[in-house]
């Protein structure tokens, strides 16, 4: 990895770290306005994080290292993904590591760490959240990997840099049936992975419906701040990945300061637009029953499979 590569990775990390709570703020604000509320303002997630960071760290009795390490691992895996994905420029992708399978698996590793922490508490809520999260995770995995397959077949590589570069070179590919189907399938997978409606309601604390929130119920203070921040970053990363794969325009081809600055700006615009769109759609959606979710995921899997077939026969 060159100096430019490390610089770009750091820039991406800082942008996602600083920007993801803002994205969350924007999404909540959009929702609030659409529902006729004033909203707490775009900066509210950052204020919450500051408040939590100042509190005393607490450890529930009977929990092990797994509980204390999970937020760190969640954060670290997300940061590792942010460092290698070409959000801003394709010129600084490391030679090994920006593989789509690796990226997907790293994000899964973070979720698994948090699920283990949920089980580690030994409370009914923790176990329930972990069980539900892992069930959804297991069912999303086929969609994700088959979607990756559909995208990588025309390129002949699962490397993110190669996929993005080849889409930039041949923009017509974005409207091929394979690409459109894969976009819808992976879009649903992103919604499920990030715990948004209709799979999970991020603003609920009702035991019948909680998934993610139940799992992290025992966290408090700085640990909770880390979990919240990492979850916001995961949302940004998933939306960013989707944008990078299906709308790669604006991603720079060099590592010059101007190109990187433009890339950062375009990335922010894309992710904000996607986030606002998602938040707007959520106003009109109700949460699916947990046992209806597999139907949604099976649908997305079929779309991903169709995308592969389409990429073979029409691509």
């Amino acid at each position, binding site marked *: 990895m060159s100096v430019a590569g490390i610089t770009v990775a750091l820039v991406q990390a800082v942008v996602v770290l600083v920007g993801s709570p803002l994205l969350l703020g924007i999404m909540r604000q959009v929702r609030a306005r659409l529902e006729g509320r004033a909203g707490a303002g775009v900066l509210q997630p950052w204020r919450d994080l500051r408040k939590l960071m*100042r509190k*005393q*760290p*607490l*450890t*529930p*009795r*009977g929990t*092990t290292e*797994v509980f204390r390490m999970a937020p*760190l691992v969640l*954060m*670290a895996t997300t*940061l*590792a993904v942010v460092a290698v994905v070409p959000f801003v420029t394709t010129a600084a992708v490391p030679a*090994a*590591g920006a*593989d789509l399978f*690796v990226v997907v*698996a*790293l994000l899964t*590793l973070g979720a*698994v760490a948090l*699920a*283990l922490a*949920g*089980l*580690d*508490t*030994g*409370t*009914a809520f*923790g*176990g329930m959240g*972990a*069980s*539900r999260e*892992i*069930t959804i*995770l*297991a*069912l*999303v*995995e*086929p969609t994700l*990997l*088959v979607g990756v*397959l559909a995208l*990588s077949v025309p390129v*002949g*590589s*699962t*490397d993110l840099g190669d996929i993005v570069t080849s889409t930039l070179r041949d923009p017509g590919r974005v409207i091929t049936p394979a690409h459109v189907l894969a976009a819808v399938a992976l879009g649903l997978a992103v919604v499920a992975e990030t715990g948004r409606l209709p799979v999970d309601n991020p603003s609920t604390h009702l035991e019948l419906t909680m998934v993610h929130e139940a799992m992290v119920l025992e966290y408090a*203070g*700085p640990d909770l701040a880390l979990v919240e921040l990492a979850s916001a970053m995961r949302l940004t990363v998933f939306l960013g990945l989707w944008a990078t794969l299906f709308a790669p325009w604006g991603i720079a081809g060099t590592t010059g300061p101007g190109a990187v600055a433009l890339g950062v700006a375009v990335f922010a615009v894309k992710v904000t637009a996607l986030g606002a769109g998602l938040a707007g759609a959520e106003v009109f959606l109700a949460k699916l029953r947990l*046992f209806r979710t597999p139907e949604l995921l099976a649908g997305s899997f079929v779309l991903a*499979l169709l995308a*592969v077939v389409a990429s*073979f*026969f029409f691509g």
Partner: protein
Amino acid sequence: MNAVGAGLGVALLLALAAAVAAPLAPRTARPAVAGAGTALCGAAAVLAGVAALAGQRLTVELPGVLPLTGLTITVDALGGLFLAVVGAVAVATGIYAIGYGGPDGRGVQAALPLFVASMLLVPVAGNVGGFLLCWELMALTSLLLVAAEHRRRDEVASAARWYAVMTHVGFVAILIGLVVLAGHAVDDSFPALRSAGAQLEPATAGLVFVLTLVGFASKAGIVPLHAWLPRAHPEAPSHVSALMSAAMVTLGVYGIVRVGFDLLGGGTPWWWVLVLLLGAVSAVYGILQAAIATDLKALLACSTTENMGIVLVGVGAAGMFAGAGNLLLAGLALTAALLHVGNHSAFKTLLFLAAGSVLHATGTRDLDALGGLRAGMPVTTAAFGLGALSASALPLGAAFVSEWLLLQALVHGLAVGGVATAIVMPLAVATVALTAGLAVAAFVKAFGVGFLARPRSAAAARAHESPPTMLAGMAVAGVACAALALAPALVLPAVGRVGGALFGAADPLAAGLLVVRLQGFTGSLSPLLVAGAVLVGTAAVALGARLLAARSRDRTAVRLWDCGAGPLSARMEYTATSFAQPLQRVFDDVVRPEQDVDVTHHRESQYLVDAVRYRLRVPDRLEHGLYRPVLTAVAAWGRLGARLATGSIHLYLGYGFVAVCGLMVLLVAIR
């Protein structure tokens, strides 16, 4: 004599010496003698295997060992790979067995080194007679070990019966297949079989392949011949489970590769489509059973079915690519499969040994009664955690590397063989993906419910750490897991050469210590860098969080959120059953759980409930559907036969007389 011969000879001599010495030793010293002998034998075998992988060859003919055919020992690279795998598993389990105790009867202790020796002989046997002898010896010694505790528990006898029948059905299938093949060759040596296999008619070759596939698949625990695995593995002593699941089962894969690619020369594409489909079904079905299992060792046994399924997906894909003419890709797929064999052996040894320690400490395998083992058994908990990470195809784990290679082969193979691969490959990718997802669920359950949280029973609360030799055995397996996960380059060039050599193709990948790069395709992976990034990231985040949380840095222990209603009891915890309930419900149509709800009403009024009893059983549905009719038919046949056997000698003499007369008449009629 070269290093291969020396290593193999020393290994076999050590095993024999241990088998003789263990029964003679005093009762308390028997496990130590047998275990140490097994471990040393394994170490010598590893050396022999490594030498064979490095390019040394060995051919020894021992005509006097077996009447008619003799025994030929031929060590090539493929045999060397399995020699090394079996030897490495034997090292870890041998050390572990020293302290495990368990049944200390003479026969059982002598059977352990003999079992390892016969497993070492299977991949190096160079003729049909010798191969079948070693195969049967392996089945018999392992059967003795499975049945070791039959006096203590009734289930052991039943498990041993299942295993005996299944393994012998498989043996008969292999026997017929190889004899049909040998019938077309000049003698029963593998080189003769090779030249005969090349000229065989497709129909005969197909018959040979299918027969041997049935036999080898039954050994590898492939659906629908997997029924013995979830029975025999849990009931055997844990180090024997490890040997069976991590070493013996992989020899089924060896058999398929040896017969299919080597002796029969690759055959026709439908063979490999069949292998791939069997593998895919086994992978998903096995891991689904693991995800809803509540018996820790049964979970691991089902996961063995899953992993062998993944290996067969790779083997099948390799056969399809070779049939389509893309030898490089075939080499890559086979390399992925063989690497997965090695990875599976490493983590399954570790997991079974850790499960054995849990059984040793708590006396139970039931996940619903475990939990909270972190406090009493920190090393075992760490070992199982490492094994679970390695098994669940997540980065930093060993299986991730091999499954990544397999996925790369499948991705690049989509366009290789026309419509057939275009339909099969996406399904194979989906299978691997679903398997990976469910494996995560199964191992999060096993580790999270079994080891973390609070104890769910008094036995789990009293758990204590195992003796040092058992920990040392786990440490050997753990180091192997970590090495395979972080630096697959240590073994990948050798494995790649085996894969490439079978197809006469170049090495499918270039493995540097840092980066594994595919040859001829774009694709690279750096397990060490990924691990480094995650570890550095974790450290950086920990540091950053500590700096930012300026005030009151000391952690305070507080009570769990209990809604203010007093301390939570263990009965309020999520159990393995409840953890798996959503998955079980999602796959309701596949697993068909049996649920009974008994509501006992109050005597005074039926509107008042006195007690509710809920019972859930998840029977193996395939077993239910396939084996039950066969068993019923056999039993009916037996009852029919019993009617003829009344116990009267006169009647039996009469049967004999009638039979002889009938035979005479028949002879007269056809002559």
